[in-house]
């Protein structure tokens, strides 16, 4: 049998702009770039800290510039997008989650997952900022020995 001649349509470079599902996917993947840049900023701060108070204050002053604030706002938006979409795909990437024989709906996974992430973030922020409610602060002091974080 003669080989059938076919036509291969090339995949256009802007393929991902043609469907909202692809756009969301690309934004989720792009969030990795912002995580990377944010990690660099933190490393930079750590390095400044090791070089003494003047260097660290210089780094902190830089963080207060409009460009850095804008960067952090964008990075935070991507972090939020990544968190939500990560929990949205979790029921697909992990074995089926069942509760009492019934499959747990995606919405429940997202709400519980994002809620837990938010609670942990709030706790760490309050701990570092020293504004934990007294009872909780007491519990943390018992768990983390003096000289540890806080």
């Amino acid at each position, binding site marked *: 049998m003669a080989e*059938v*001649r*076919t*036509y*291969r*349509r090339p*995949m256009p470079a802007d*393929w*991902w702009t*043609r*469907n909202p*599902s*692809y756009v969301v*996917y690309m934004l989720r*993947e792009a969030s990795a770039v912002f995580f990377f840049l944010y990690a660099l900023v933190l490393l930079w701060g750590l390095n400044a800290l090791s070089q003494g108070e003047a260097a660290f204050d210089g780094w902190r002053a830089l963080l207060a510039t409009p460009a850095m604030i804008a960067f952090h706002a964008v990075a935070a938006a991507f972090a939020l997008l990544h968190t939500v979409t990560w929990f949205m*795909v979790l*029921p*697909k*990437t*992990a*074995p*089926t989650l069942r509760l009492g024989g019934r499959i747990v709906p995606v919405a429940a996974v997202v709400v519980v997952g994002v809620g837990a992430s938010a609670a942990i973030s709030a706790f760490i922020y309050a701990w570092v900022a020293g504004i934990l409610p007294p009872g909780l602060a007491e519990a943390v002091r018992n768990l983390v020995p003096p000289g540890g974080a806080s």
Partner: protein
Amino acid sequence: MTDTRTIRIEALRFNPETDSEPRLQRYEVPFTPDMSVLQGLQYIKDHLDGSLTFRWSCRMAVCGSCGMMINGRPHLSCETFLRDLYPGPVRVEPLDHFPVQRDLAIDQAGFLDKLAAIKPYIVSAKERPLSEGPSRQTPAQLDAYYQYSQCINCLLCYAACPQFGLNPDFIGPAALSLLHRYNLDSRDIGWSVRADAANADVGVWECTVVGYCSEVCPKGVDPMHAVNENKVNSALDYLGVKRLLGGR
């Protein structure tokens, strides 16, 4: 008939014997509210242009032959209705990411090879004589794979998969769903029979969790879940855990 309206259908045309590349051709098609896009194409073939080529068989979303891009999205043309696309125009093209054979018909050969590669049949540990009667399964055992057995090989999921578009060798959503279907079947040996297909470079790891395959599946198969559960299996296999579990 009073409820007959007219809609424009723009079809991609490609004749491998004469054309160097595809072009669009427009047809004005009268339709009634009960007509699908497939019936619109059949009207064109019967009354306007007998050379228009497209595949179909069952007309009821069972055979999986009639998949095509309708206004840029993969659909079964037999269950997509012209009334829902009015006033149009309706653009019909062959499924994305596949080589075009003629007009709306794609070349399925690559998929058929992949399907064969995942051994789409029950591989049992030992031959069962007929005298033993049917292999029985509990409702729970049936439930484990039932969803994946609903695949009709319509290939909409491949047209929805940019990874397949970028790498035509990717085994892809439907074949991997069927791999999962047989692995989950209590009558089958399971994982070890199809491990090579899943572990390959063009196997489950080629998937980057775009997830559009599961959105377009007309049968609710959820290929994305099948593929990604097998990333877990593939990782366990790499670590040697699958062997401890007897290859299941």
